[in-house]
């Protein structure tokens, strides 16, 4: 790689991800308006923000799934997507970009497992095809990773036979098989049924505890509060505020952050209310049934008593 080291030396003091003034527009519509962001090694950063705020786009710019219009992004000292030749930037070839992506794992909202391959084949594919790892070796490592995400018993299943939560965990194992330095999560739980969210978040939490550097786009407030080292709130293509979760989530400084968070809380509250309403409704229905039962029993008892009285009178 060219002399990118001049601007971003690769020591531990320097962030793993270093983005300056990143801009991006889709058909004239500016989605990112100059994002600056540093992510240290081992840090877990959660990107929060309303939909359309540019958080997913920024995530995709980091591993070049989107090309950026302006600014620069370095990952571990490599300038992503470009080569700096004496001050002018030159596009890297597709192969060079592919090589840069090897060190960055990514999980998608819709999992994107390879449906024609089994779980094991999904995990083994990239190490063997991209890194040239021997098949047996890759297999052993894959089984280990599947064990780690709690799917050690499903290596020969096809993705279509798994639940969403299981598929997302396979996707995490698939990304980890490349031994990435950085993991990107793009709303990993928003396509899941509520009861499956927990298992995926648990795997991600374990990963964070293991020291993985992670950038996570999510609406899971609980996860952000407990796992994130830093929360970045984005709106309309700019970073509005950032800081430890306790500050940003519980004591936001900006009006936009406050309104977003209160909207999220309302949604959560509405969700909770809906659950309570359902439960109450069910309880009432059960009580009604019980009451009807009791009345019927009493009526029956009365009828029996009457009949007994009648026989005794005779």
């Amino acid at each position, binding site marked *: 790689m060219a002399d990118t080291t001049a601007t971003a030396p690769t020591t531990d003091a320097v962030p793993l991800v270093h983005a300056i003034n990143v801009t991006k527009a889709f058909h004239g519509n500016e989605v990112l308006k100059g994002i600056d962001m540093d992510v240290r090694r081992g840090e877990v950063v959660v990107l929060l923000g309303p939909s359309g705020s540019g958080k997913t786009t920024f995530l995709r710019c980091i591993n070049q799934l989107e090309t950026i219009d302006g600014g620069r992004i370095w990952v571990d000292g490599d300038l992503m997507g470009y080569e700096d030749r004496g001050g002018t930037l030159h596009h890297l070839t*597709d192969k060079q970009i*592919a090589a840069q992506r090897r060190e960055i*794992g990514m999980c998608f909202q819709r999992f994107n497992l*390879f449906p024609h391959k089994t779980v094991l084949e999904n995990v083994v594919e*990239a190490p063997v095809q991209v890194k040239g790892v021997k098949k047996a070796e890759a297999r052993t490592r894959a089984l280990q990773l599947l064990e780690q995400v709690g799917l050690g*018993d499903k290596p020969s*299943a096809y*993705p279509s*036979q798994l639940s969403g939560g299981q598929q997302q965990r396979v996707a995490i194992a698939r990304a980890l098989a490349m031994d990435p330095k950085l993991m990107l999560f793009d709303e990993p739980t928003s396509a899941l049924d509520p009861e499956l969210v927990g298992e995926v978040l648990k795997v991600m939490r374990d990963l964070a505890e293991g020291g993985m550097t992670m950038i996570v786009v999510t609406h899971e407030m609980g996860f952000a509060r407990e796992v994130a080292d830093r929360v970045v709130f984005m709106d309309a293509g700019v970073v509005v505020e950032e800081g430890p979760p306790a500050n940003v989530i519980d004591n936001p400084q900006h009006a936009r952050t406050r309104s977003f968070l209160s909207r999220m809380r309302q949604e959560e509250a509405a969700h909770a209310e809906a659950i309570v309403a359902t439960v109450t409704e069910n309880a009432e229905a059960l009580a009604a049934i019980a009451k009807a039962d009791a009345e019927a029993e009493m009526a029956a008892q009365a009828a029996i008593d009457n009949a007994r009285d009648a026989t005794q009178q005779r």
Partner: protein
Amino acid sequence: MMISSALTNPRWDWKFALEVMQQKPVLEGLVKGTLLGTVGSMIIGVGLGVIMAVMRLSANPVLRGVSFVYTWFFRSIPRYVLLATMGSLGYLYPVLDIGVPFGQPAGLTFGQIGINALSNMLAFGILGLGLSEAAYMAEIARAGILSVDRGQTEAAQALGMSPGKTMWRIVIPQAMRVIVPPTGNETIAMVKDTSLLLAMSITTELFFQTQAIGTRTLQIMPAYVAAVLWYLVICSVLMVGQSRLERYYGRGFGAVPKKTQQKLTKIEADH
């Protein structure tokens, strides 16, 4: 009524038809012209067709243009006309030099092929059918590739796979699920189109041979019946092959193949 007529009218002469089916020239025509012709031209057609489809979807405008012109040209020309024209190429270029373009004066020619000797060779006919087929296959393959979810490409790219690996290992195998059924159709059509090889005066081909026996013995109908029966047999075999292929490429989508199901239950039983 038709069945009873077929069984009772002696002019059908089933016995003679069966005899014709087993004649040596007929068998030779069947194997060489019809079967080899189908297999060969379909290999060229599918291979070149998939390459053309990939080119058509490429970001490079030159590749896209080449693919478009190719498809436009070969789809526009009737197969019979194409074969007849190719058969007459020897009139224009009696000798084909293999070497560096414009290098003849400097003696940069490595070898020569006589087109006239080649033009009635089966290989040339197969090439003609294959080139024509590739144009249709390109469209079928393109539809197949476009049917694969964009997320698949992104997932492969995010894992660091090169565009080529992404295409051949992730996208094409999934596209095959959509490509196979119409390709089966094309193969069956090709079995029948090998009879057009006659346009290049290739006579080792099923229909020409049976017809020849028919005209020679004046038993035209039984000879035709013999050809019909052979075509029925070949196409039936092909249809079985097609359904096998469909099951293979359908793995992981909806219905689980029997073998995998067995493997799965075995694994579960072991645990």
